[in-house]
């Protein structure tokens, strides 16, 4: 379900005149992106450089790690302009998403994380591209091409890996491990936070909508494209 159009807030300065509920909601989103982009780069992208099987993929992974870190920098800079303390925009100050609690062990796992988690990120960023807070909308537009590349990287590398029987088994095992954590990425069903986001046009879609969209798109990728099996999971978080 889409939210009604809200009056855009064009700048960080203009945010000061917005209702407190709006300001707090925007702060939560900026903080969450700043924390999770940094933590994701640390626990997945940087360790994956050592796991990559060729110099080409090592340097590409190095670049991806830098881009993910760059997303953190952009969200952190916006947060600083909004007056969010720096300590609240790092994993040391705020708890990151639970998917990051499982250390990366193989290259196949990294490729699957890019396939699944970056698609989930794209769906979140697509929603922010219509955000009523214009600095956040602009940031979403800037980061989107890189998010799309990272997701495509996941698709391309998994496509290559599943060409061998051993690769198929490893990619399937990584999907079995990581996919069950993904629905929670979109937040709770009937979330009070999400209701506030939609009330003000900060976000457009319910958590349930985005989760359902993700499940459809990921099924097309995993079962339609890779010809692998998506494990059954509870769709409601």
């Amino acid at each position, binding site marked *: 379900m889409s939210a009604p159009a809200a009056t855009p807030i064009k700048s960080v300065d203009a945010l000061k005149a917005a209702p407190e509920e709006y300001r707090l909601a925007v702060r939560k989103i900026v903080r969450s992106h700043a924390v999770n982009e940094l933590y994701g780069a640390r626990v997945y992208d940087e360790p994956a450089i050592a796991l990559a099987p060729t110099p*080409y993929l090592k*340097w590409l992974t190095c*670049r991806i790690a*830098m881009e993910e870190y*760059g997303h953190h920098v952009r969200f952190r800079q916006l947060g600083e302009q909004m007056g969010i303390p720096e300590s609240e925009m790092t994993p040391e100050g705020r708890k990151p998403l639970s998917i990051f609690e499982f250390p990366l062990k193989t290259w196949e796992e990294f490729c699957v994380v890019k396939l699944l988690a970056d698609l989930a990120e794209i769906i979140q960023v697509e929603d922010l591209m219509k955000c009523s807070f214009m600095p956040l909308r602009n940031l979403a537009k800037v980061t989107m091409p890189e998010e799309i590349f990272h997701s495509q990287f996941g698709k391309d590398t998994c496509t290559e890996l599943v060409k061998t029987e051993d690769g198929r088994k490893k990619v399937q095992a990584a999907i079995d491990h990581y996919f069950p954590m993904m629905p929670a990425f979109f937040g709770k069903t009937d979330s009070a936070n999400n209701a506030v986001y939609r009330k003000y046009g900060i976000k457009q879609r319910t958590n349930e909508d985005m989760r359902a969209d993700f499940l459809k798109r990921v099924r097309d990728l995993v079962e339609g494209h890779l010809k692998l099996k998506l494990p059954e999971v509870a769709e409601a978080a």
Partner: protein
Amino acid sequence: MSDAARGDADAAWAHVAAFTAEIPRLKWFAAVGTILAPAVIAAVERYVAALGLAPGPIAPVAGWREAAATAQRPDWSRDWWQAESACEQTLQRQGAARFGLQPLLAALTALAEAAAELQTPSASALAAAGVDAPALAKVAAGAAAQACHQRGLALLAGSETGRAFTAKFELFAAGHWPLGIVGGTCFVF
């Protein structure tokens, strides 16, 4: 800290700051595909020797497609990559002992943020060569950023261990892209 040690540390920070400022001004990838000049070959020899690896043939790479294929060959030297990684770890330990880990990481972060812009010259060089390969532009930018990080580590550690990365960075600064040791040959694009 003694005056001499403080002066030494100040000089190291100044070197890193100057190096960080220099990154956007270098002619990245401007000489890829060209003949390897004697100075370039000499830098490759110093790079390989400083990593503790046996000398071997040095070969040019003619174009972007060949460079991508070379970097994806399965017979790349694990010893070469490990030697670089070991060198990085030693330099990081030395740099942390000299300045403390957090200041060291802060300097390297500033350097990485400057190196994040290197996709612009790699993409421009690919476009000038008429090659449409967005992923390869990122690969080249990743390799260049890694070289910046390694050179930064060498400057901060201020030890002989960093000679390999000083020589490697000379190759990038000369507009080339060292592709590493593959099949026993050190390839330079």
